[in-house]
């Protein structure tokens, strides 16, 4: 019983902490963020296993965690408000080449991040080539390029 409670507690805690940390925490791909995620995985291990290193305990924990994940996704399908609370909503950051400064500030993103996404995803060079830049729910930035010749 112990193992199931630990798994539920840690799953819920990680969910809450990463929501508080913000979307970009999971989406950032600098080397340090990668290292940080590895370290977090290590700190979780002891809390999950306790002193019980049996295979049965591992199976129990894995089953509980995956089960929680499946359960949560089913629940999100039925309760849109839960989906919003756990995942957030997308956000338009740039429209027709004009960035929304307050939204960039709120999301803790700078224009450089938007331009990097534009280069990476669409091969665009300048802000005015962007029709829409959207901060997606998973923290990534997606780009809709402006149609050549204006309009759209």
């Amino acid at each position: 019983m112990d193992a199931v409670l630990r798994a539920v507690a840690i799953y819920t805690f990680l969910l809450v902490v990463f929501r508080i940390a913000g979307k970009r925490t999971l989406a950032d791909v600098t080397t340090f963020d990668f290292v940080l995620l590895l370290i977090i995985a290590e700190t979780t291990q002891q809390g999950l296993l306790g002193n019980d290193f049996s295979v049965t305990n591992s199976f129990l924990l894995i089953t509980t965690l995956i089960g929680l994940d499946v359960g949560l996704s089913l629940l999100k399908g039925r309760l849109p408000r839960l989906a919003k609370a756990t995942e957030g909503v997308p956000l338009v950051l740039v429209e027709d080449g004009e960035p929304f400064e307050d939204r960039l500030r709120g999301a803790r993103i700078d224009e450089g991040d938007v331009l990097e996404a534009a280069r990476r995803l669409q091969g665009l060079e300048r802000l005015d080539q962007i029709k829409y830049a959207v901060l997606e729910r998973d923290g990534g930035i997606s780009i809709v390029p402006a149609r050549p010749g204006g309009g759209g």
Partner: protein
Amino acid sequence: MQQLEQDLPFQRREWRAQRVGWLLMAAVVAAALFGGAGPLTTTTAEAGSLHVEYRRFDRFKAPTPLRFRVGGRATSGTGPDTLRLWIDRDYLGRFQVGGVLPTPDGVEVGPDRLTYSFVVSNAVGPAEATGPVEVTFHLTAEAFGVARGRAGLPGGEAVAFDQLIYP
């Protein structure tokens, strides 16, 4: 943009909630810095010549020291004296007893308590009171919740000390 589920009021509430979350996180870290093994957590309970130093808060499966100090005791001067100290059995059951410093001479089992006996040297001189002696129990918490500690000298003073063990 068509068909984008943007929701600005929700977004602003989310950012506000995040800021509250950051404050909570900072408070937790601050509490841990000052608590745990810090100066605010360790406290003493005393009764007469018996003092016990313990941590008010500690964590599951974390080592926690329990220090008893027994004040000056007159000796008979004819040989090593014995210090007997009893600890409540229910309390000890919530911990794993690691080392005891010094190693007890013997342990007696009672219905509700364990009585440890330690040999006290009287190298000070005949019929002179010895200084306070210290006995340390290195415990590891095995159950979380409130641990109600009771300990004392047989037929003499007793102390009570409560600890909260986080899971």
